[in-house]
């Protein structure tokens, strides 16, 4: 997976999304301008590999939900193209949707029906579901999300976490190749968040590609293999989690009783951005080998008490990418 900077990818609005079988979701120049003239999604090129757990990250209002709605055929794009599991475009997407489980912008069910009745209704709308196994499949989905015991309670009596889990259960009514989950942990307490995370891991372990949107960094970091970062409608980063971690400039940090001499040595070696804070000196490591720097410091007689290479935290990277403060803990 190579790093793609969406801004430099330069996709024309009419370039078709490649029907690459290794991608569960592919978009090319996908855009949505709402009637108010506001560009909610600004020509993004998503590439979600089959088998990945793809974290779709960005602050609230950055265009994540609009993108998801386009991928599911709920909203017609105003530009670009998209392919989901080989089916293209808002009009053709219904062909792929039976293989896609989806939870869009929170669960939505009938309050006066029980959890089981609500799932039965979802299943009844499915024109390709196996009619004979409906009951068994509904029970299985309820069991997977741990709602079997509460299956016959009215939806209105469910807690927020149970509602979210019922939403996920509706996506599990039949085996899926792709799950699209929009903010599945929104509004949940830490316990509920952990439950959903475990559930997503289980779904992914069964071989389903998972596309999960979130504004919570910690959530994505723990479960995702790939990440796309949205900011004000644009995809500002896309790649593997490792790509993202590797994106920050590695710095060297030296703890020493003679920081000024150490800083001079680093500058002489050609390291940029040297800074001194108390007994700590840091500089951008670049292509230099830390051990060579250590040897040079020792040769110059700098007493090195500690030496480490450090990367910026993911949080720092996100702030760099999106230009805004992330709500790290929800």
């Amino acid at each position, binding site marked *: 997976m190579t790093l793609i900077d969406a801004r430099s990818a330069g996709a024309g609005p009419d370039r078709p999304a490649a029907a690459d079988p290794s991608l569960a979701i592919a978009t090319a120049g996908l855009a949505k301008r709402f009637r108010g003239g506001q560009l909610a999604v600004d020509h993004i090129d998503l590439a979600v590999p089959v088998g990945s757990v793809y974290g779709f990250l960005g602050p609230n209002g950055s265009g994540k939900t609009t993108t998801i709605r386009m991928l599911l055929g709920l909203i*017609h794009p105003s530009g670009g193209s998209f392919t989901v599991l080989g089916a293209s475009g808002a009009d053709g997407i219904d062909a792929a949707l039976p293989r896609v489980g989806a939870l869009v912008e929170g669960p939505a069910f009938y309050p006066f029906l029980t959890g089981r009745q609500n799932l039965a209704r979802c299943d009844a709308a499915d024109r390709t579901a196996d009619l004979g196994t409906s009951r068994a499949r509904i029970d299985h989905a309820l069991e997977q999300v741990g709602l079997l015991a509460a299956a016959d309670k009215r939806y209105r009596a469910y807690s927020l976490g149970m509602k979210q889990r019922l939403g996920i259960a509706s996506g599990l009514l039949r085996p899926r190749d792709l799950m699209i989950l929009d903010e599945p942990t929104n509004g949940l307490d830490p316990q509920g968040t952990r439950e959903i995370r475990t559930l997503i891991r289980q779904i992914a372990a069964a071989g389903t590609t998972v596309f999960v949107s979130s504004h919570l960094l910690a959530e994505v970091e723990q479960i995702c293999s790939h990440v796309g970062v949205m900011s004000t409608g644009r995809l500002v980063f896309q790649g593997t989690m490792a790509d993202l971690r590797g994106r920050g400039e590695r710095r060297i940090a030296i703890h020493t009783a003679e920081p000024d001499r150490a800083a001079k040595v680093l500058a002489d070696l050609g390291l940029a951005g040297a800074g001194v804070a108390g007994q700590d000196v840091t500089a951008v490591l670049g292509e230099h080998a830390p051990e060579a720097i250590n040897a040079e410091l020792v040769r110059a007689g700098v007493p090195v008490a500690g030496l480490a290479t450090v990367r910026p935290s993911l949080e720092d990277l996100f702030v760099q990418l999106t230009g805004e403060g992330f709500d790290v803990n929800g």
Partner: protein
Amino acid sequence: MSTDSAVQTGRPAVTAAPAPVRHWLRLLRSELRIVFVRPRNLAMLGVLAVAPVFLGFALWVNTPQPGAGGGNSGAAALIGQVAENGVFLALLAIFVLMTLILPLAIAVVSGDALAGEAGLGTLRTLLTVPAGRVRLLATKYVVIVIFSLVASALVAIVGLIMGALLFPIGPVTLLSGASVPLIDGLARLAMIVIYVATALAALGAIGIALSTFTQHALAVMATMLVVVVVSQILDAVSQVAVIHPYLPTHFWLAFDALLRTPIDWTQIWHGLASFAVYAVIFGAVAVARIRRANISS
């Protein structure tokens, strides 16, 4: 496909219907269940059932003189007949409820159909299943048609039962003066129920078209009631007589033609044609709209 699933589950293929039909019937059943278990709709049907009871007791306590209404048409003519024959209570109930309460019931169901689902968010759930946009719309309209029939029949049946309990039942004296056997009278009542249900189904087409434009069920209901009331007012203003035949409510009460001999079928066919035109036009609007609509609720 269909035989496969039957074999897998060990169940005999009950019907020979192809899979798309059986899947659609399942969706229809599910939609019907939603409409007929929703507390609000049950309350609405309750009101429809109670109205003929009220009406019956009111006329029983204060029995009008036979032919008291004096008029040859409208509610007055029907009221005069009730004391002589309980069958007319059913007709009177339909006549009275057709002015507002029956249309209101259809407005409630039409508003819920798509706008209500959009407001609740369940529309996005159904469409991502995928239920199919036009398929879902068509199913919902079929449910509205069935609901129209159930609502009209409910009023007629409760009216008939109350009429039989409180008043004599026998050969039916028609508005034109001739008397027909009871069974003939009941057949005419059944035809009236179907006629009224068709009128309501046409109103339902207007409703489901409105329902594709908003996510506020209440807005749909209010608009429909405004349409009904304004249409009825215009229909009563003789200065605009030229537009009367084109008003959606103009033929709603034309079923009194079925209470005369010989039956003036022209009036009935005009009415049914008017309902069909409304249903087709607004059905087309609804289909065009649902296909293009951005579901952002």
